[in-house]
């Protein structure tokens, strides 16, 4: 019965085209005389879940930093809802999550969750910040751990606080750089599933950098494969599996087929490509 549902959904158009929230055109980045990214064209539809996957050194983290306004492209342009990434970040449109949760060890979970918001918006009172932090902790499933310090939280819980901290800004887009990379396999699966639920509840646009083929297919609507030397988008894959997805999707024949397809693409992306 499950298989039928999936097949029926698989027959739909791969994705419905929304307005692009993020669009990168001809982005190249040169760092230390090395071409890190070459001529990247990327569009991320509003409300979409997009993954960037590729071998180490393909520049996928750099691409995420370009989208976040933390690295200036050497050439090309990036627009987030018509703004430059730096302008978008100042308007609290960008939420960032890194592999390391980077919580402040001297603050408890709720104060960590509201920390960036407090800096971005100085007009908020302490009570406002606490309330917002608590609300976000509840969203990520940590409502009853508000007063715990980071050293009392597990790795997965710390990363949930980091996600809450990004969401507290109420950003239009969540940029995540291997957020679950340091977690064990089971926690990683659970975190992915939670992220999916948060995405569906909040309607945020998410761009996820990952190493994991399973994670990319389980979570995203579109996957872009990056190749090395120089970093460039070699392939793009639409994931037609219907939402809402849960972990049982990984046993779906279509999921297995996509894993094989994406693995083949990734293998090809390990071959250095000439400047074309």
């Amino acid at each position, binding site marked *: 019965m499950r298989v039928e549902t999936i097949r029926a959904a698989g027959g739909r158009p791969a994705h419905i085209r929304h307005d692009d929230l993020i669009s990168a055109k001809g982005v190249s980045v040169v760092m230390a005389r090395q071409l890190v990214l070459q001529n990247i064209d990327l569009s991320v539809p509003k409300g979409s879940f997009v993954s960037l996957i590729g071998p180490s050194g393909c520049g996928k983290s750099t691409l995420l930093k370009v989208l976040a306004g*933390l690295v200036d492209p050497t050439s090309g342009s990036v627009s987030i809802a018509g703004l430059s990434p730096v302008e978008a970040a100042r308007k609290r449109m960008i939420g960032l999550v890194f592999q390391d949760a980077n919580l*402040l060890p001297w603050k408890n979970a709720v104060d960590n969750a509201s920390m960036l918001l407090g800096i971005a918006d100085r007009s908020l009172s302490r009570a406002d910040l606490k309330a917002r932090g608590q609300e976000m902790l509840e969203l990520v499933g940590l409502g009853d751990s508000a007063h715990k310090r980071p050293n009392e939280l597990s790795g997965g819980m710390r990363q949930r606080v980091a996600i809450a901290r990004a969401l507290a800004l109420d950003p239009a887009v969540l940029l995540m750089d291997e957020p679950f990379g340091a977690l064990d396999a089971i926690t990683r699966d659970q975190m992915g599933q939670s992220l999916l639920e948060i995405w569906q509840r909040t309607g945020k646009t998410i761009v996820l950098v990952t190493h994991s083929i399973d994670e990319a297919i389980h979570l995203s609507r579109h996957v872009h494969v990056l190749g090395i030397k120089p970093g460039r988008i070699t392939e793009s894959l639409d994931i037609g599996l219907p939402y809402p997805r849960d972990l049982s999707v990984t046993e779906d024949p279509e999921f297995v087929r996509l894993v094989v397809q994406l693995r083949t693409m990734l293998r090809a992306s390990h071959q250095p490509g000439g400047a074309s």
Partner: protein
Amino acid sequence: MSDQPITNRSESRLASSWSAATSSWLPAVILLLATIVVWEAAVRIFAISAFIIPAPTEIAKSLVAQWGTLMQATLVTAGEILFGFLVSVVVGIAIALVIVRFDWLGRALYPLVVLFQNVPKVALAPIFILWFGYGLAPKIGLILVIAFFPVTLSMLAGMQSVDRSLLSLMNSVGASPTQILFRIRVPHSLPNLMAGTKIAATLSVIGAIVGEFAGASDGLGYVIQFASTQLDTALVFAALLLVSVLGIAFYYAAEILERIVVPWAPKFSQA
């Protein structure tokens, strides 16, 4: 009935932690007592004259006989140490903040601070006496030049070891350098700063004694010098004992301060 085993377990845990504490202290205490006994015996057996090495009992006698003078001197030295230590910590923190906050000033100041660190500061004691006289000021000055450096250096290390991606997060929401300094760098540096503060506490004791050696009319350093000119070696040792007690007291005071200021910092293992 059901909570019986739990009570037993907690009692036995208490007992085992007590026995762990005694077993960790016991060897040191035994060695100390043994040393004192051997010292006493050696002085008596070989009839070593008291002005070369006084027996522990002689030192204890001197300690009791001169108790009033020694306590008064201890109070003076303790005051110098405390004042000098506080000034060192404040100046050390201020220099570290200036170096981190004002980039160009930091580039000018930091090499000079390191250069100054290589001046043998004990040799500055006579100059400070010349400039500031025989009172409190030259001792504070000497403690300052000896003790501020570990404070500055440890705080700098702490402030500069903030994770880059945390700084990226702060920058992405438009945090100002001052906000990053006081919200992130300074609290992040506190565990390092406290480690530097403990070193400064120890160095402050040295600074005070050196300052008193160079010129003073009071304090334990003065007692040591005066007693040695009188060949009252027992009194020298008695004063030395009190200096050591002061040193230990200041060190543990700094450690208690550390537990209050940075309860969230990773503690070193109790084992």
